[in-house]
C-alpha cells in the first residue's frame, strides 16, 4: 500500500499539470500521453550518460514544456482544434521519444537517481519517503498557487473562464494558452522523469492512457474537496492521484481477477464523475464552505449557497 501512495504522490505532479490545462485553461490536452514519456526518456538517457540526476530531471521539465509549446502553437497560431492539436503532438512525440531514447526501453537499474538517497538508505516504501514525496508535491502545489495569483496567472485563469473579456482588456489569450500548456506539460514530464527513476526504466509505452489517470485524479480529488479555492483544488488533485492509486492497489490486494483491472479503472472514473452530482457530496461541499466562511467568503457565495439549500428543502 505504501508503494501505491508513493506512486500516487509522484503521479500527482502529472495530475497537477493536467489540472492546469483541464480546469484552469479549460483545454482538453492530450499531449500528456506523449510528454510524460518525453520527460522519462530525457531524464533516463541523460542519467545513463552520466548527467547529474537532478539536472537530468530539470532538463526533463523543459523538454516537456517544449512539447506543450508545440501544442500551443498548433492550436493558437495554426488554428487547429485543441483536441486535435494535442493528439498531433502526442503522435509526433512517439517518434521524437524514440529518437531521444535511441531504443524503446532505457534501463536505469543500478544508476544514480534523484531517489538514490532514499533507496540506498532503505527508506523507499517507508513513511519517510512518503513524507519526502509529499513535501515535493506541496512545493509543486505552492508554486502553482503562487503562479495563479500573479498577474500572469490571473490572466491565465481569466483566459479559461472568459476569453472574450480578457481579450477586451488587451491580454493575448494565445500567449496565455501557450504558457499554460508549456507549464502543464513541463510538470507532466517532470512526473515522468521521477517515475522512470522510481520504477528503474523508461519505456516508450509508459505514457499510454495516462491522460485518463490524470483526469481521474483531478475529478476524484475535486469530487471530494471543494473547488472554491485554488489551493484547496490543487491539493485535492494531489489527494485524488493518491486515492486513485490506492483504490487500484486495494483491488489488486483483494485478489480481483487480473482481467478486471481495466474495468475497475473505468468504474472508478465513472464513479468519480457521477458521485459529485449526488446530493450528499453537494452538501459536503457546501459544508466545507460554511466552516471556512470566517475566512471571508463573498456575498455571491452565500446567495448561491442559500439557493442550493432552498432547492434541497423543496
Amino acid at each position, binding site marked *: 500500500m505504501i*508503494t501505491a501512495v508513493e506512486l500516487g504522490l509522484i*503521479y500527482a505532479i502529472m495530475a497537477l499539470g493536467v489540472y492546469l490545462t483541464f480546469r484552469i485553461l479549460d483545454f482538453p490536452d492530450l499531449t500528456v500521453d506523449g510528454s510524460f514519456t518525453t520527460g522519462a526518456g530525457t531524464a533516463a538517457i541523460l542519467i545513463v550518460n552520466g548527467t547529474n540526476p537532478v539536472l537530468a530531471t530539470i532538463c526533463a521539465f523543459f523538454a516537456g514544456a517544449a512539447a506543450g509549446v508545440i501544442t500551443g502553437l498548433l492550436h493558437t497560431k495554426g488554428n487547429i482544434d485543441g483536441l486535435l492539436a494535442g493528439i498531433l503532438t502526442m503522435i509526433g512525440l512517439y517518434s521524437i521519444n524514440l529518437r531521444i531514447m535511441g*531504443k524503446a526501453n532505457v534501463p536505469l*537499474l543500478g544508476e544514480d537517481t534523484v531517489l538514490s538517497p532514499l533507496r540506498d538508505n532503505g527508506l523507499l516504501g517507508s513513511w519517510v519517503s512518503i513524507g519526502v514525496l509529499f513535501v515535493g508535491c506541496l512545493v509543486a502545489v505552492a508554486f502553482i498557487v503562487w503562479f495563479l495569483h500573479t498577474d500572469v496567472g490571473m490572466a491565465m485563469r481569466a483566459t479559461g473562464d472568459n476569453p472574450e473579456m480578457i481579450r477586451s482588456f488587451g491580454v493575448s489569450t494565445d500567449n496565455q494558452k501557450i504558457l499554460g500548456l508549456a507549464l502543464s506539460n513541463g510538470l507532466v514530464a517532470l512526473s515522468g522523469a521521477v517515475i522512470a527513476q522510481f520504477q528503474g526504466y523508461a519505456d516508450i509505452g509508459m505514457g499510454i492512457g495516462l491522460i485518463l489517470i490524470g483526469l481521474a485524479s483531478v475529478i476524484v480529488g475535486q469530487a471530494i474537496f471543494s473547488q472554491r479555492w485554488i489551493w484547496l483544488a490543487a491539493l485535492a488533485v494531489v489527494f485524488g492521484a493518491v486515492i486513485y492509486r490506492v483504490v487500484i492497489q486495494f483491488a489488486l490486494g483483494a485478489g480481483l*481477477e487480473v482481467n478486471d483491472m481495466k474495468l475497475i479503472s473505468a468504474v472508478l472514473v465513472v464513479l468519480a464523475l457521477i458521485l459529485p452530482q449526488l446530493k450528499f457530496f453537494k452538501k459536503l461541499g457546501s459544508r466545507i464552505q460554511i466552516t471556512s466562511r470566517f475566512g471571508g467568503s463573498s456575498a455571491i457565495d452565500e446567495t448561491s449557497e442559500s439557493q442550493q439549500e432552498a432547492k434541497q428543502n423543496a
Partner: protein
Amino acid sequence: MKLAKAFQLTAGLAASALVLSACGGSEEPADGSGGAAGEEIKIGINQFVTHPSLDAVAEGFKAGMEAAGYEDVEYDEQNPQADQATNTAIAGQFAADGDLDLALAIATPSAQASAQALSDVPVLFSAVTDPVEAKLVDSLEAPGANVTGTSDKNPVMEQLELIQQFAPDAESVGIVYSSGEVNSEVQVKWAKEAAEELGLTIEETAISAASEVQQAAASLDVDAFYVPTDNQVVSALEGLLQVAGDKEVPVISADGESVKRGALATYGINYEKLGEQTAQMAVRILEGEDPATMPVEELSEVELYVNTAAAENLGLEVPQELLDEAAEVYEATEE
C-alpha cells in the same frame, strides 16, 4: 430528484459489484500447508500481460514446482495488464509484504520493476529476450545480485537455416519489426550476425504501428521473410503473410504460434518448458543456492513447427526428415 436517485442506485450497484468481485477473488486457498521443505513457501508472480506465451510460462512454472515436490506453494499471482504504473505498484507490494520466499517476473518490464523494488528477495525472471541489455544481470554467466532467470532468446541461426532448407536459392531475407520494442531490435541484430555466417543478407524495415505491417512488407524485395517475436508484427501477421503469398516467398517465424497461423516453419521455444526450467532454478534457490552465481539459462531444447498447407501454397515439398522431426505439423492454416 429522480435523476439523483438513479445515480445513487447506479453508484451503489457499481460499488457492491466491486466488493462482491473482491470477495470472489479471495477464495483462493491461502493456507499453503507446507512445501517439500516442510514449511510454507510463498511465491509472488508478476506477469506483465495476458498473452499465450506468457501464460504458458506461468503454467509451466507451477507444473515444474509441483513436479519437484513443492505442491502446497502459495502463489500471489498479479498481472498489471501492461499498465506500467500498476506493474511498479505490484513490485512495490511484493517488497512491502516482506513474506515472499521468491518472486517470479515474467517479461522484461516486470523483471525490471521487480529488480528495482526487491533487494532482499530472490527474483527469477522468465521470457526476457536479453537480460544484459535490460540491465537485469551483470553478465549471463554471473548475474551478480539477487536476480537471475531464463531467457527466451530464439535460436535465430537454426531458424534462418530453415530458409535455406526450403529455398536453397534464397539470398535476401526481409524483416519487418517495430521500432517501439527493444526485443525486436535485439533480434534483428542477432539475425544479421547469423545471416552473415549463412551467407544471407538481411533487409529490414521498421514500423511504428501494426497497421503498417503489410505496407512495410510490400516495400521489401526479398527471397524470404523472417518474423521476430514482435508484438505489433505478430498481431498483424496476416498482412505480411498475404504479401509473402503474392511474392511466393517463404515466411519463417520465430514462434510456433505464427506457424499455426500460416508461416511456413520454425524452430520454436516451448514456453511451458521454459516455465518448467525456471521452476527448476527456483527449487535450487529455495534450497539455498545464491542467485548471484547462477547463470542465466536458455531453453535447452527447441521444437520444430511446420505448416504443410503453407508449403503447398508455395509449391514446396516438405522434406520427410523435417516432417519426422517436427513436434507440430499443421496441415491447414487456421484463420
